[in-house]
């Protein structure tokens, strides 16, 4: 018994202070919420019908974009069907909105050419790339805005790439902005080891007019990029408006200056290719809704691939076939014979077209891993029923207000807790020491947990959360009060200190458990059903209630029980109940209080 108590006491002390120490040593701190740090919060919600997959993809895409922008500690939360994006430190509202404005729209765009595909995986590829790259430069004659009309000469792959990404001042079709970003994308992708997995991003598209055995040669890696030169000249001279099928091209808001690849389906653009590399793509020839919502990844001829059905009629099959025949024939609009599948500014895959016309089903094969194929299927499924996101709320919090609030909340919170402790000391005398230590243990535990959670699962501490913690001080202290009042009751009715401590805890524990369970129910319901600050509050309320339970059982119980065994505590004077005891003693002889008399006799 005694050993168990000691063990529990030591364990909780080690856990709590160890956690605190670890947090201090690694100098990690809880992530502050938007309201304490300043920044912008944008909430979006889909309207109308959408594929649930699309929402996941949208979150992924937003995360990618925000990460590429280098916003520190962004918070992207899905709450029900709403996506909340908190961007601490961002001040420009317009920028923030564009950053998170994902359409979920999948575009099919003919590929002009691609460079640096899967750069990291095969170094020898890289050697070839600059070669490919010069050609577009000469032909498209990109009088970059910065460099005037001078045609960039041969240089190291990196520098050519940078220049090539700011092309086409003359034709004025490519925005400089996506270009500058694509540099970022390319250099960023260079750092990602897994990018190599996708390097052979040139799988082949084939039909399977219901049977899945078309003419597929084993996919050649990165084909057709070199052959694009001649076609390219013509391609750029073609006015951007003359898309293959203008009817299918949706109206898109005018592109604005951001450093994020904003997809504009009406013009020729350079967009990053998933897995590394950049592709110059033409105006969109079709949207994801040419496909049925049945894209599926599976084994096609011993390799992973994706099978997807085409919708019937003018909006599906016809659009697709028009595109396919253009690309198959290597027409000027699609010199590379590849068709890019683009989702929100990222080319997910750019397969070569192997067949001029398709009847009911499309197969995309290539050197896919299982994950790649499933990703592509996900994209196609979501694209067939695209998400229409609507911005529901945009909130700006000024950082000065935030830091002041934080400082004030912390200072006043600490003073408040000190006042409580002083009051407890006055009331419970020596027993208050247990409360002192208990409060530090639970604070250490809370701090450690919050730090850990904000490192691992992106929890942020907002003003509402701090409020929840401050209020929970009351509840935590109440656990002690309930216990100590019971302890006094037991001592008063004539039990020994040691006995009282045990019985007192048994009774108090039931009360504490019951009351805390109600709090936990409340916190859980709120956490599941609400959004925003209320949810944050609910989390902290639940967390501190749990900590309260743990501390009561693992710290307070052993501490008091062990203390009660000592001679020191047996004198009772130390805990502010000596007078009670004296009163009880004085009754024993006189008789008129039979209730206690019986006990003391």
């Amino acid at each position, binding site marked *: 018994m005694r050993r168990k108590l000691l063990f529990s006491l030591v364990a909780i002390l080690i856990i709590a202070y160890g956690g605190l120490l670890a947090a201090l040593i690694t100098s990690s701190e809880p992530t502050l919420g938007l309201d304490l740090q300043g920044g912008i919060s944008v909430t979006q919600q889909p309207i109308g019908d959408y594929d649930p997959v699309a929402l996941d993809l949208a979150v992924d895409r937003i995360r990618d974009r925000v990460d590429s922008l280098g916003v520190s500690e962004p918070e992207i939360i899905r709450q029900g069907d709403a996506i909340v994006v908190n961007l601490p430190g961002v001040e420009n509202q317009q920028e923030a909105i564009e950053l998170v404005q994902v359409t979920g729209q999948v575009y099919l765009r003919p590929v002009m050419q691609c460079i640096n595909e899967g750069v990291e995986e095969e170094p020898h590829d890289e050697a070839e790339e600059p070669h490919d790259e010069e050609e577009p430069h000469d032909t498209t004659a990109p009088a970059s805005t910065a460099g005037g009309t001078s045609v960039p000469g041969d240089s190291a792959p990196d520098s050519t790439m940078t220049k090539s990404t700011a092309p086409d001042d003359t034709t004025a079709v490519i925005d400089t902005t996506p270009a500058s970003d694509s540099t970022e994308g390319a250099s960023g992708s260079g750092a990602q080891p897994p990018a190599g997995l996708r390097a052979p991003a040139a799988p082949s598209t084939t039909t399977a007019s219901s049977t899945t055995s078309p003419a597929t040669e084993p996919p050649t890696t990165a084909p057709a990029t070199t052959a694009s030169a001649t076609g390219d000249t013509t391609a750029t001279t073609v006015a951007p408006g003359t898309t293959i099928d203008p009817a299918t091209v949706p109206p898109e808001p005018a592109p604005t200056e951001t450093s994020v690849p904003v997809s504009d389906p009406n013009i020729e653009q350079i967009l990053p290719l998933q897995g590394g590399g950049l592709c110059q793509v033409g105006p969109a020839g079709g949207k994801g809704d040419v496909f049925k919502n049945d894209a599926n990844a599976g084994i096609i001829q011993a390799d992973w691939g994706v099978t997807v059905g085409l919708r019937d009629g003018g909006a599906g099959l016809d659009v697709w076939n028009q595109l396919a025949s253009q690309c198959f024939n290597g027409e000027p609009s699609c010199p590379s014979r590849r068709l890019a599948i683009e989702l929100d500014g990222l080319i997910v895959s750019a397969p070569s077209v192997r067949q001029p016309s398709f009847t009911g089903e499309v197969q995309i094969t290539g050197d896919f891993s299982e994950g790649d194929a499933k990703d592509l299927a996900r994209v196609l499924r979501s694209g067939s029923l695209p998400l229409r996101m609507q911005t529901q709320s945009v909130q700006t919090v000024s950082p000065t207000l935030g830091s002041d609030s934080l400082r004030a909340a912390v200072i*006043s919170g600490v003073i408040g807790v000190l006042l409580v402790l002083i009051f407890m000391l006055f009331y419970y005398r020596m027993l208050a020491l247990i409360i002192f230590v208990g409060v530090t243990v639970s604070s250490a535990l809370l701090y450690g947990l919050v730090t850990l959670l904000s490192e691992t699962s992106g929890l942020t501490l907002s003003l509402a959360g701090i409020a929840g913690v401050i209020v929970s001080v009351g509840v935590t202290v109440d656990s002690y009060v309930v216990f100590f009042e019971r302890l006094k009751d037991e001592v008063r009715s004539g039990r020994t200190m040691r006995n009282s401590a045990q019985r007192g805890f048994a009774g108090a524990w039931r009360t504490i458990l019951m009351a805390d369970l*109600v709090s936990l129910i409340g916190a859980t319901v709120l956490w599941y059903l609400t959004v*925003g600050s209320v949810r944050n509050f609910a989390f902290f309320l639940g967390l501190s209630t749990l900590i309260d339970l743990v501390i009561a059982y693992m710290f307070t119980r052993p501490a008091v029980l062990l203390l009660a065994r000592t001679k020191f505590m047996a004198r009772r004077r130390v805990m502010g109940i000596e007078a009670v005891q004296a009163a009880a003693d004085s009754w024993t002889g006189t008789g008129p209080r039979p209730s206690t008399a019986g006990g003391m006799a």
Partner: protein
Amino acid sequence: MSSTIDERQITVEPSERALSERRGPGGRLYHGETAIDFYGRRWWGLAMSALLLVVTVLSLIFNGLNLGIDFEGGVAWEVPSAEVTEDEARAILRDNGVDDAGAKVQSLSSPETGPRLRLQVGDQPQEVVVAVQQGLATAAGVDISEVTSNSVSSSWGRSITEKAVRALVIFLVLVMLFISWRFEWRMALASIAAMVHDVVITVGVYSLLGFEVTPATVVAFLTILGFSLYDTIVVFDKVRENTVKFSSARAPYADTINVSMNQVLMRTLNTSLAAVLPVLSLLIIGSGILGAVALREFALALLVGLITGSYSSIFIAAPLLAMLHEREPKYRSLRGSHATGRELERLVLGGSPGGHRHESARTRRVDADAPVGTVVAAPPASPQSVLTHAPRPRKKKRR
């Protein structure tokens, strides 16, 4: 009621010094020896609360609640107002095609940020929001990032409100079920009533003072709700314990309630103080001295809520519980004969109700016979009249 009190007082042995004479009121409170007849004074508390509720309802009817844009939807801009007057701001709104008739324009000031002007209008498209923001920035001669804007679409605002209400209803149902399962349905009903009472009164304070209801306010309301329930549960846990203890005797339920209330009084006061102190510190030091205005309304709502929360668990929940129980046949006949004064004192200190019934009957008889002033030592009547659980004799050896 008064007749019963008188009757009881007759039965008091004159020689015995009352506890109340041995200690001052503070001392008795400190040692948990109070004997306050909460049940007998239940109408005071109920009447007081009824008055507050009426005031709240009137205020809600005439003042309404000042709902923030998070619930109604709309756009709010805040601009440093050293250079911008209200008229200029309204003109900017008009220039951008916003109807300025329904716009709320407020001057704010805080020590850190200086005077600021706050404009609030209904739902606007994003372009208009940015245009107005730009206009305000130009007028104030500051960078656009100094002008904050918050916009919430009205459909989103509605869905937020709906979600909160739905969460609340589910929460109430679950808590009702939980309390009914662990305690009894009457306690569930009484504690929910007390909780609603607390929230309504706090809402009333918001309505009276015209504070804006923001998500932080909702958080405060929820905290109150949780605290109120927590407090009531602790009180009811004691009531339940005493109900078991008293169940063998034919004691009125009011005795159970009174004894429990007196036994937990100190705990309730302590806990309330422990909960109120940090909030008070937040209010006075945080928002008063350090000037964090964001904390002020929040802390005020909490303060009001915590105080009513403690008040209601004793003055609303407990009397309601007693009244619900007295409808039971078991207690109905005993209604109106609850112990007060000395009797109550004895019960609070751990006496058993069974003994007390027999004793008082016996004492009354003795009183009739014996001359006044004789000390009557009542013999221990039954095992129940002593401790329900006698202290175990100390074992010689440690376990």
